[in-house]
């Protein structure tokens, strides 16, 4: 079975707010035996918590990975009032209707799960990679509750921020960071090593209508749902993005872990504005040591877009193989 991890698999926790692009990231991760998914921790973000939890459960069932536990995360940002995504439809999954999940979330909350798993990882030395696809509330609350868990984190691979690229929700700010800038501040100032897949990277990988047809054709039993989700993702805004299609934000986290050769990075220290209303959620990269602080992040600056599309085509085609097998 494709979902069975390899002995050398990377232990990961996927922290997310599904979300169409989160769904694509999860579906790719589910058929990647290089990853050992310890849990999924949905958070309030694109949609309210109840919806992101339900969507995570539905996506687990869709992907045939009911073995992966889902832990409900924080129901609101650390300090600010919640904001919601604009591009995911009223359910968070566009027009796609998935069956009511039979699986339910674990009784343990996401923050407790993160603290327990990362404490155990700190003790065993088998550190965990955190794949962060939504606002960083769960991780920030866990770090503030129990700072010692930092020792259990291998690195944070996050989709969020906008460094040289303008924002997507406000002039300055990308949605995930704007939705909880205080949480981003906690993570950026935690000392944890970070890989930042910001709009600088994700706007280089547009999922175009011609790609959607190829994904649908390749993915077997998943073809209808994938085609529907991906078609809904089309921003249809050539002036903004240079082409039709939608930026492949969250899935890039999975691609970065499994195909790092497709990405170029640059070291920087990361900061986030959490005081100014005008620039709330703006992320700043110190490329040249102006802050006097050591770099804490690899910021992705270039992506091989065709390579990434080919990577996901290959991964998602595994659903066709699984149906046959």
């Amino acid at each position, binding site marked *: 079975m494709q979902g069975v991890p390899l002995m050398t698999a990377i232990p990961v926790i996927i922290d997310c707010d599904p979300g169409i692009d989160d769904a694509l990231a999860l579906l790719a991760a589910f058929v990647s035996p290089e990853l050992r998914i310890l849990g999924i921790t949905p958070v309030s973000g694109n949609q309210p918590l109840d919806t992101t939890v339900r969507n995570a459960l539905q996506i687990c069932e869709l992907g045939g990975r009911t073995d992966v536990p889902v832990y*409900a995360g*924080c*129901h*609101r*940002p*650390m*300090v600010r*009032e919640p904001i919601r995504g604009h591009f995911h439809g009223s359910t968070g999954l566009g027009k796609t209707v998935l069956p009511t999940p039979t699986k339910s979330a674990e009784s343990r*909350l996401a*923050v*407790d799960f993160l*603290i327990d798993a990362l404490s155990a990882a700190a003790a065993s030395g088998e550190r965990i990679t955190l794949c962060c696809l939504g606002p960083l*509330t769960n991780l920030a*609350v866990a770090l*503030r*509750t*129990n*700072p010692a868990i930092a020792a259990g984190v291998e690195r944070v691979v996050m989709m969020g921020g906008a460094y040289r690229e303008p924002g997507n929700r406000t002039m300055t700010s990308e949605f995930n960071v704007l939705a909880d800038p*205080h949480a981003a*501040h*906690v993570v950026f100032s935690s000392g944890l090593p970070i890989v930042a897949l910001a709009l600088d990277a994700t706007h280089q990988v547009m999922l175009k209508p011609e790609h959607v047809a190829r994904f649908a054709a390749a993915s077997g039993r998943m073809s209808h749902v994938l085609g529907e989700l991906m078609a809904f993702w089309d921003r249809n805004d050539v002036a903004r993005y240079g082409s039709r299609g939608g930026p492949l934000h969250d899935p890039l986290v999975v691609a970065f872990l499994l195909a790092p050769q497709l990405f170029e990075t640059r070291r920087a220290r990361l900061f986030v504005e*959490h*005081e*100014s209303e005008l620039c709330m959620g703006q992320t700043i990269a110190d490329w040249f040591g102006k802050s006097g602080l050591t770099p804490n992040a690899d910021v992705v600056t270039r992506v091989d877009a065709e390579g990434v599309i080919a990577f996901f085509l290959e991964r998602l085609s595994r659903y066709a193989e699984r149906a046959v097998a």
Partner: protein
Amino acid sequence: MIRVIIDADPGVDDAAAILLALASPEVDVLGLSIVSGNVPLTDAVANACKVVGVSGRRNLPIHAGASAPLIRDQIFGKYAAIGTFADALVPPTDVVPEVEHAVRFLVRTLRAAASAGDPITICAIGPMTNLALALVHHPEVAQGIARIVTMGGTFRTPGHRVPWAEFNVLADPHAADVVYRSGVPIVAIPLDLTTQALFTHEHFTSFRERGGAAGAALGHLFTAFDRSDVARYGRPGGPIHDAATLAWLIRPELFESRAATVGVQLTGEMLGATYADYDGVLHRASNAQVATRIDEAGFITLLTERIAFYGDRAAGSLAPGVPI
């Protein structure tokens, strides 16, 4: 009996608040959740254990909580040099904290209270970091809180660390903001209120002479860390801020209060400043009942009599928990 969790950063006046609570049959203290504030977390936990040790309530659960504020750089109290209470002031104890973290304790206990329809009162007498973290965890946490009685903020009286803010809010303004916007009913006991009741050496002597081991410890602490400031308060004596939250629960008739919209400044130089809109000029629903006046003599009598309970109990004239 009012079921109470005390969220504290002991701290000398936290010790007075905890000992007042544990001597009062009107309140049932379910546990202490400890936060860094007046002193670093490890000292605050050690002090909580020492205070519980002298109180005789050795089975009271003590949970260590957040060691740093949510967002701002950490600051400690004016009397941070206290650290862990010296053994000469408060004797050593073998009371130890629980393994469970304070935030997990709060989330677990308050969610259970919400499910049971029997919400719990929180006395928040330190920076409100633990409470803010718990409130972000799950919506049932707010539903499990009957009200938060907090010593914090100042509206007309200058602060001690900076003129525009009271320490507990200044130390974690973001946490205070989360609590004030949580929708949970709040009773705010600001500096304006606590500085109306001044305790002098006469009262500390009473603690020492009448209050058994607990009273002796409290008397030693207040004598060692004298808050008297005639220039500031206009007469001898010093406030015991945190104990006023318990007094409000035990003897609400000692207080006058007004509904207000309370807010916290989260940016700029005046970080941690608090306002109370009593007159509705902001056109926002009020979120707190602000205590504005206290019957000084009544509060002093309450605290000195309740501390004397520890001496009476030691002398065998009272069983524990018997109303005074």
